[in-house]
């Protein structure tokens, strides 16, 4: 099952770990807030997505499906 990522922008505090761990899908804007590719994450990158979601200190990065 492919998944897509999204951010809860209210919870996000721009720690930036997600972009560090998953630069293929997530970049940061000029203020350090993530810009997430809305497309489904290909399964070969699942592990990266999973790691980025798990690393978010404010639990702001969400995966639609695993």
């Amino acid at each position, binding site marked *: 099952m492919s998944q897509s990522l999204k951010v809860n922008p209210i919870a996000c505090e721009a720690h930036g770990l997600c972009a560090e761990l998953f630069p293929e899908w997530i970049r940061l804007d*000029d203020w350090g807030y993530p810009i997430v590719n809305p497309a489904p994450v290909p399964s070969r990158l699942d592990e990266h997505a999973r790691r980025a979601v798990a690393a978010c200190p404010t639990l702001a990065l969400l995966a639609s499906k695993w």
Partner: protein
Amino acid sequence: MTGLSLLEGVRPDGAPLPLEEHLSLYGPAPPIRRGRGAGLELIELVEESGLRGRGGAGFPTSVKLRAVVQSGRRTVAVANGAEGEPLSRKDKALLRALPHLVLDGAALAARAVGAEEAIVAVGAGAVRERAVVAAAIAERRRSRLDGAVLLREISVPDAFVAGEETALVQWLNGGAAKPTFTPPRPFERGVGGRPTLVQNVETLAHLALIARYGPDWFRSFGTQEEPGSVLVTLAGAFRRPGVYEFDLGTGFRDLISVAGGLTGAPQAFLVGGYYGSWLAPDDLLGLSLLEADLTTADSSLGARTIFALPAGVCGFVEAAIVTRYLAAQSAGQCGPCVHGLAAIARTVASLTRGERNPGGRERLSRWLEEVNGRGACRYPDGAARFVESALRVFSEEIDLHLRHRRCSGSRARLLPAPAMAAQASGRR
């Protein structure tokens, strides 16, 4: 069946239409049977009518009604009269003149979704409207009009985003009047955790007429795709600005002549309020009051407000003031909205001062693109649309500012930027 249009019952003196006169003029609202599934008949009428929300987003009303009723749980209905859009007057005008039409709609919608409570939310600063609504509710209570439905009037902060439906729900739950992350949407989890129907007050007034006169009557106005009439606030260079009811599909030229024409050749129109977009006269005048038409011009009906910018006023300075206001009115919760809109407003202001920043325009374009869709609500999207359209329509003025550090127009400050004192987080 023949029926009255929305504003036909407005008294010449503008005073609120008393309950008795309201009932004899519009006729009594049809009763809704008690018990499970009884409200579905009304929902079917609304579905056949094709009524869409008149608050801004234009969502089909019957879909919202169904989503709430399908929960099978105890529900709440909210009539949204917050009208935080500074240019818009239509919801206040409706509440002031025809409170019972709105309350009919609120009570009918509440019964249709099985709610025992209908909350009418009105902006705190709309003192007169709140008094009118409270008095109308008392009138109905005395005549036991609404049976098991309890109507209540509640004031909400006068902030731009306070009327956004998740912000409204959070406020009614005792929190700040700020948007929340979705899901859950109010129809899933709203006031008191219950599935909640949030409908704009004008939408409910239309619903009250559809319940009386039927969907075919409603569809005798407007077009097949966009049926019915709409309330529109006309502001700026109209000879007779104010709130009007127009059939959807009315040509903009006709709309202007109904308002007595324009005070001079307009430079541009702001369609849809501060969430809306600027259009050059030539791009608007051939169109009609239809989403389908405005979409072709990268615009939308939005808050159903049309502002005509008179000649001799610098539109870009006006737009810069609104941009600063929009940045300040961010609920302050989402980083991209807080920082992005502030940076955009600073850059727009620097353009009005004629400052040339290397790479500034490119950066501004990128920011406008990047804030889009990155808030919990659509606020940054609307603000970006406003600024993008201003950059497009006022490109000549911007060049004048950059070349001469001034422009020929005056700084009239025609567009209101209400004082920021009333913030969304304030106490009740």
